[in-house]
Each structure stands twice: as C-alpha cells, then as structure tokens.
C-alpha cells in the first residue's frame, strides 16, 4: 500500500505535487506560424489549416503493475499535418507531457521535415509517466498497450513514430512487435529508430552530428573559407557534438575547443580529436578529468562559447547563448547542433553583429533524414551500406542548406527566418495543390 501511495503521489494530477509553471508552448509555436504567415502573405485559409493539428487522439492506458494493481496513464498522438506525406515524429515518456506540448512538437516536426524536403508531415506522441518510477516490464506493458490504442491512426503510410525523450530503440522494437502481432504480418516500417538487427539503419547513431558537419562544410564554402584554415569550437561532447567534431577534424578543420558539462579543452594549435574521443569514451561527461596533452589547457563552458574561433557549434543544452554572452561571442559563424541553443534576444544581438547562425531546424536535421532512410529501406526490404546512407544524407543536407541560404538571401532575412518561411511555404503549396477535400 505504501508503494502504491508513493506511485500515486509521484503521478502528476493525482498527487500533491505542483506542476512546474511553464509557458504555453503551443501558443509560442502559433506565434511563430503567424509571424511567418504574415511575412509570406499566406492565404488566410491555409494559415488557419496550419494553426490546427489535423488529428488529436488521447488515450487512457491501463497497465498491470508488477505489484498486481492497475494504473492508468494518459497518452497522446497528435498529427499536425499530412499534406506532404505520412506524419513523422517521436514518442516521449515524461511526467509533464500534455496536449499543448505534443501539439507544439508535432507542428515543429511538420516544418523540420519540410526544410529538408523529406516527404513527411509532422506528428508527436507521448505518455504522461515518470519512466524512472517504472520497471522495464511495466514500461514494456505500457508501450504495448499504448501502441494498441493509437494503432487506428498510425501506420507506415499514415504516421511513423520514432524515439524521443525517455524512449529508445528498445521502445521502438516493442512498438514494431506489437503492431506485427496484432496485424499478423511483420511491420517493421511502422517505426524508425529501431535496433540495426531489427531493421534500423546503419549510420543513424552519428547522423545528427554528421549532418551538422556537412552543413558547416557548406557554410564555409559559401563564406569562401578554406577548411584547413578554419578553427572550430564544439560545446557538448555527447552523441551530436563528438560526431560533429570528429567529422570536421577528418575534413581538415582545426577543432581547437571541445567541452562537456564540466568544462572543456582548449588547444589553439588544434586538439587531437582521436585521443579526446578515446578519453571521452572512458570518462563519459568527464572530458577534463585527467586529460593532458602538450599545448592543451582546461577551460570552462563559458570560456569555450566566447573563444577565438571561426565556427562555434553549440551541441548541448538550450539557451546556452543568451543576451549576456552574445555580445562577447567571437566566432563569425554559429551552427546549432542542439535544439534552441540561442535565445531570441541573443539571436537579435548576433544578427546585429553580422554573425551567421545556421538554425537548429536545418543544422540538426540529419537525424530525421536518416530516420527517413530507415523507413525507405524497410519499405524496400533492402538495406544500404553505411556509405550509401552517408552519401544520400550529404545530398539532402547540402541541397537543403543551399535552398535555405539562397531563399534567405533572396528574401533578405536571416537563415532562421528563411528556413521557417521556406518550410511553411512548402507545406502551404502542398495543401494548395492537393485542394480541400471533398
């Protein structure tokens, strides 16, 4: 009984815990859509279509807990737009998941897929739960029941889920298996982000970081910079940051600073990324701990952000570049590996200082592009070598960068605004060309 009470108290809406005050994220996305619609002089009818998700499903997910009692979790699946193709978007497990958050994320997925021109609309899903309070068996049962309950609206040509906060390739494997069992046919193409042994794509793990590196390369070409004379700082040495640093190092750039949560390394002559990777793999999140090399100093994260480099790649948390440090940033180019690393106030300061910012919606889209490749391979029952995955990723990232760059220059707007305008324009054209049914 004590454990049951503990679980209930820990459940948002049931217990005594207060919700953390949050801004309405859906309102924020609507403001963004309205702003872009105004700049595009978008047809009001199409604008109103985009202001509402196409379909919203809320489900009550009963789960038999290990201790023999039943708990009911609330789950969502929201499809913002299928104008450009089947909907695509992750599923997250988190105590604070709510309808507005899922709506906002679904709409942003519509725009992200449009920016890189992959044939998807946007969706998102979630279950309101604290996964750390659940055992693996409970998570598995919850995933399977949630899958069964959203099955009427998902499908390989309807809506393809993927991992997000607190879900992973194992969760995706359970979803694929549940659908396969319920339909009586192997349906691996129902989700992406699966383990490679179960139809996942090679190259997925490094895809976001690789995309960041590819976009950086294109940016340097446009800026007329020689790669070998370019210095780069990477903040965040997780999956995205370490892959981006490694690939840029291979391309010939001089990576002079990297950092993780506890600070970083600064080597003005260029860091030995291979040895840094080895050290990072053996001391996760402890990059500085015990690392010594000639000419390498230890620096703080704040120092890394304002270090004297040509390109800065924030690949850690949100809002790392803010109004207070934006005036001190010395890099002339910023490529956003993380989601939302630049606050809106900082964005304006950087714009005034003529610092080029490649926005997250484009720069870190490599992950969703390779998810698209996974789906394509699953539909074909034919799997690509990693070289082919990377070659196609490059084609898409380079084309997308060129489109956003050219469009932004034509419209005389920053790359971030240009990327959103281009995305909304693509979705609007698809809606217009399809017409309004019936």
């Amino acid at each position, binding site marked *: 009984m004590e*454990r049951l009470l503990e679980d209930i108290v820990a459940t948002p809406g049931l217990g005594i*815990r*207060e919700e*953390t*005050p*949050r*801004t309405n*994220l859906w309102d924020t996305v609507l403001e963004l859509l309205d702003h872009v619609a105004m700049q595009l002089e978008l047809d009001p009818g199409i604008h109103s279509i985009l202001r509402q998700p196409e379909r919203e499903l809320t489900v009550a997910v009963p789960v038999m807990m*290990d201790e023999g009692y039943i708990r009911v979790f609330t789950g969502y699946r929201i499809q913002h737009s299928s104008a450009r193709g089947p909907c695509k978007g*992750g599923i*997250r497990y*988190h*105590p*604070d998941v709510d309808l507005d*958050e899922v709506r*906002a*994320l679904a709409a*942003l997925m519509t725009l992200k897929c449009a920016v890189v021109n992959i044939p998807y609309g946007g969706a998102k899903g979630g279950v309101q739960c604290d996964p*750390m309070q*659940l*055992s*693996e068996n409970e998570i598995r049962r919850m995933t399977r029941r949630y899958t069964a309950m959203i099955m009427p609206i998902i499908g390989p040509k309807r809506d393809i889920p*993927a*991992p*997000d*906060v607190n*879900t*992973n*390739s194992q969760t995706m494997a359970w979803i694929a298996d549940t659908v396969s069992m319920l339909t009586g046919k192997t349906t691996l193409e129902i989700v992406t*982000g699966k383990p490679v042994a179960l139809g996942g794509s090679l190259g997925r*793990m490094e895809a*976001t*970081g690789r995309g960041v590196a590819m976009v950086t390369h294109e940016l340097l070409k446009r800026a007329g910079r020689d790669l070998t004379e370019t210095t780069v700082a990477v903040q*965040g040495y*997780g*999956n*995205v*940051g370490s892959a981006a640093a490694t690939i840029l190092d291979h391309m010939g750039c001089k990576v002079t600073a990297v950092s993780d*949560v*506890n600070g970083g390394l600064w080597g003005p002559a260029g860091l030995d990324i291979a040895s840094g990777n080895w050290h990072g793999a053996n*001391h*996760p*999140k*402890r990059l500085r*701990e015990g690392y010594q090399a000639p000419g390498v100093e230890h620096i703080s994260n704040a120092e890394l952000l304002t270090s004297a480099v040509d390109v800065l790649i924030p*690949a*850690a*948390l*949100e*809002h790392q570049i*803010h109004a*207070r440090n934006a005036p001190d940033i010395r890099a002339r180019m910023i490529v956003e*590996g*993380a*989601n*939302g690393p630049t*606050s809106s106030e900082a964005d304006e300061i950087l714009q005034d200082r003529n610092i080029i910012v490649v926005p997250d919606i484009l720069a*870190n889209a490599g*992950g*969703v592009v390779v998810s698209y490749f996974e789906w394509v391979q699953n539909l074909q029952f034919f799997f690509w070598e990693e070289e082919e995955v990377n070659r196609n990723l490059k084609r898409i990232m380079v084309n997308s960068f060129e489109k956003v760059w050219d469009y932004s220059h034509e419209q005389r707007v920053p790359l971030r605004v240009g990327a959103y305008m281009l995305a909304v324009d693509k979705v609007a054209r698809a809606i217009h060309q399809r017409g309004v049914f019936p």
Partner: protein
Amino acid sequence: MTRQVRIAEVERKTPELLLPDAESTAETVINQAMEFCARKMRLEDHQAVLKHLQQRDATSYKYCCYGIARHVGDSLGTLDQNVKAVYTVDYDATPEDICFAREEQMTLIHLIVWVERKTSALQSLVEGLDRALAGAFSRLLGLDRLKYLLDVQIVDDADVEKRVGYGAMFSSLYHRPIKVWER
C-alpha cells in the same frame, strides 16, 4: 563623530550549512538507491544489485542514479530550507540523439536545484555531499576514486522566470527535467 559604515562591512556572512556527517549521509543515500534499484529490477538484495553494477549493466546503473538523485534531493531539501525542488535532467543535445547514445556507466548525475536564493552555504553542502558520494560509490564498486558523481546546477526564481541558464530548462520543449523532490 559617526563612522561611515560600508554596506559590505555590516552584511552578515551566510551561515554555513554543515552536513552533519557527509560520509554517513552518502552511505545512506547509496543504500536507499540500491534498494530502489532492487525493487525496480526485482532483484533479491543489495548484493544482487552490486553484481549487476559490477558487470556494468546499464539498467541497474540507471536505476541507482535515479535513486541517488531522489535521495540527494531529499537530503538537500531537509538540510537547506531554501531548496524548493530538485530535478534530474539529461545534458546532451537532441533528445532523439540521447536515444541513440551508448549507454554509459560512471557518467554524472545531473541535478537542477531550484532555490529561493543562491547561497554559498548550499554550494558547500553540495560539494561536501558530492565528495562523500563519489568516495562511497567508488569504494562500493572497487573503482579508482571518482572525483565527483554529481553535476548540480543551482537556479533561483529569476533564472526560471527569465529563462537564464538551467532556469530555461523548465520551459523547454526539448530538455525536460524530471522532478525528484519537492518541498
């Protein structure tokens, strides 16, 4: 003649919050975390948890870390009345890519401590507890002594309201802290 007194001279130093016994608090926190892990993984006892940890099993490490986070939150909240709530958070870039990262052992436990006001006393308390936890955890697993186990970021109401630093996480779409303790 009255002497001009500068404000700095009359400001009282914040009384330091001394952890009653950092070592025994750390031992208790780790025992409670192992108990939590055993319960979630349906393991018989601490020895079974220890075996999993020594085999570098990522699931047992994950549950232990979460257990530690909860009990650290509890300790900080009990010892410092300024602490309003404690959260855990993932650090790296995009959530989708955390899903594809290698599951790591011996990584850090990231905590955000939301306080009424930031004090050096709380900072010292955190540092003392972290040292003791890192020592106790290293001894438990028979490792070289870890320097730290926790990454603690302290934010106040202004940080949260103005979305400064880690205060921005509470209204983030992408990085979602999970509350582990609340007053």
